[in-house]
């Protein structure tokens, strides 16, 4: 069952949501390929299958609103408006990357876009997001801070500490839990005592909701409600998005769920064809959507091209930027 267009988005706006998801999907497919070819060192954590969450949430935000995300954060970065070229160059650790090639796949940041970074320590960015949200409150700025994290992070102490502090200080912080069912290999059934992570946030007195994270319109509506609540000074909001991790934990990790029950489930819930069907049922022509696909493909091809042609940092620069002064 799909959510309705309760936000009354125009056809163009609906197609734009589709385009943004597609852009992430193609970006991630390219990243996996570039990793396989040896262009990406370390690893890369694919966001494939979770596109509806970051796109649905970020579409409810202003450019000045801040977003922090995890090492599985390419999707959030793209959804917040970061340039695919500078992100791809960062994945390839080139000087033209958003972090000058210092961060790589797990450390993306574009302050100009309000994207305050992805973090590779599970849950560590949650209190940092809390501090960013507190700065908005102390400055009386009507901005909200959104923090994406996974089900794994919801078991870390800093998660609970931040729920408490954000609720206590009524900071304009939107917690978005992307519950994809797995922390590397451990399923949530083996790590969580209760089925809904949102219940824990409720325990701190935080307005909380659970949505189908593969239904873009459901996520988007939840985000619109959350943003309104937080922006009005009513305190933090918690959105748990139930989703499925289709790809392996990282390109470096073993295991994928081909032929498993998850694979069957995935085919039913993949947010892209699901939303495409919905758009077509609403009268959008398939050719118009295919045109979007072509444009996204061109944009990502050009981003890959830009990244591959960009220089790597020189070894002389290694000590630059340890300190600001």
């Amino acid at each position, binding site marked *: 069952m799909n959510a309705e267009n309760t936000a009354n988005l125009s056809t163009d706006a609906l197609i734009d949501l589709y385009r943004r998801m597609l852009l992430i999907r193609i970006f991630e497919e390219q990243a996996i390929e570039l990793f396989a070819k040896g262009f990406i060192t370390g690893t890369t954590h694919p966001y494939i299958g979770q596109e509806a969450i970051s796109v649905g949430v970020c579409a409810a935000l202003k450019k000045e609103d801040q977003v922090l995300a995890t090492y599985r954060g390419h999707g959030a970065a793209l959804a917040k408006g970061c340039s695919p070229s500078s992100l791809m160059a960062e994945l390839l650790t080139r000087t033209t990357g958003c972090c000058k090639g210092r961060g790589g796949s797990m450390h993306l940041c574009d302050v100009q876009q309000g994207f305050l970074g992805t973090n590779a320590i599970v849950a560590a960015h949650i*209190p940092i997001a809390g501090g960013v949200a507190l700065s908005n409150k102390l400055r009386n700025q009507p901005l909200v801070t959104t923090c994406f994290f996974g089900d794994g992070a919801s078991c870390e102490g800093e998660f609970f500490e931040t729920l408490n502090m954000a609720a206590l200080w009524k900071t304009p912080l939107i917690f978005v839990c992307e519950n994809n069912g797995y922390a590397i290999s451990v399923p949530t059934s083996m790590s969580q005592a209760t089925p809904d992570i949102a219940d824990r946030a409720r325990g701190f007195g935080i307005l909380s909701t659970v949505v189908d994270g593969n239904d873009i319109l459901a996520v988007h509506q939840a985000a619109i409600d959350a943003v309104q609540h937080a922006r009005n000074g009513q305190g933090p909001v918690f959105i748990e998005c139930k989703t499925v991790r289709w790809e392996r934990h990282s390109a470096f990790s073993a295991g994928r769920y081909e032929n498993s029950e998850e694979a069957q489930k995935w085919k039913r819930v993949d947010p892209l064809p699901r939303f495409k069907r919905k758009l077509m049922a609403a009268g959008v022509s398939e050719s118009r959507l295919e045109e979007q696909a072509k444009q996204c493909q061109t944009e990502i091809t050009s981003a890959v091209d830009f990244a591959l042609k960009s220089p790597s940092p020189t070894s002389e620069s290694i000590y630059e930027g340890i300190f600001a002064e």
Partner: protein
Amino acid sequence: MRTLTMRDAINEILREEMRRQSELTLLGQDIGAYGGTFGVYRGLYDEFGPERVRDGPLCESATVGFGIGLAISGMRCVVELEFMDFVTVAMDQIVNQAAKLHYFMGGQVTVPLIIRTPIVSRMGMGPQHSQSLEAWFMHVPGLKIAIPSNAYDAKGLLLTALRGKDPVLFIENVKLYGTSCDVPSEEYSIPFGKARTLRGGKDITLVALSGTVPVAMAAAEIAAKSGIEVEVIDPRTLNPFDDEGIAASLRKTGRLIIAHDAYRTCGVAAEISQRMMETAFDYLNAPITRVTGLDVPVPSGALHQGVVPNRENLVTAIESLLN
């Protein structure tokens, strides 16, 4: 010139900068109306209120995390950790976050965060409230570390930290809070990376840190009675570290003792010793000597007195080095 205690000097510069910098915020536990566990924040809550002198829940990790969030948003923040032993609870935020964000984000953010924390050695508070853990942080690129031993240096170094752009671990010492010296009321700052010679001498260089500094000064005084001139140097900051300041003294004296309350193994003394061998080996007339805390969990009660260096330990080391 008036004298101030180290506690009051820190309080004074925080108060002055809170007045000058409207967005400077203090976070911690018991820092509000209570005035801080050791009274460093006395009166600040009354003047600046609960928004800027912000008492929070007991969670060192998220407190530092919130401080980083404020800092990267351009709001300078001072977080107090009540005992240095509690850095363990906030380790990830200090080591993996504060020290690294500027570097791995390609300079897009700065982290003007100051983490103040006191060493509580020499008080007999037992194994979980007595540690000097500065060496751990000297090991981590990206953190500036100040470790002043007197009111004058504390005020000047803290002002530098409060006007800077980088994360600073500011290590104080409860035993020194009540000690006084001349402190100008006019504004002054002390740059990081410049050691201070507290007492001149030509026979031995004695480098001492934090709570060991007064002990080193007392030992030098005793040695002077036997005609031994000990040059006592306080590095004041560990990162950046004044290699050249220590080396210059060593080239003159040819002998080096390094003293600190912290554990011996992998302590700051080991690092300084190695640096001096790399910098001034040809000038050494004797092996470098360490006088340090023992490698033992610091016991409560009377036993703790034998764990950290005392004046006699240092006098013995001085005499042995010359014989």
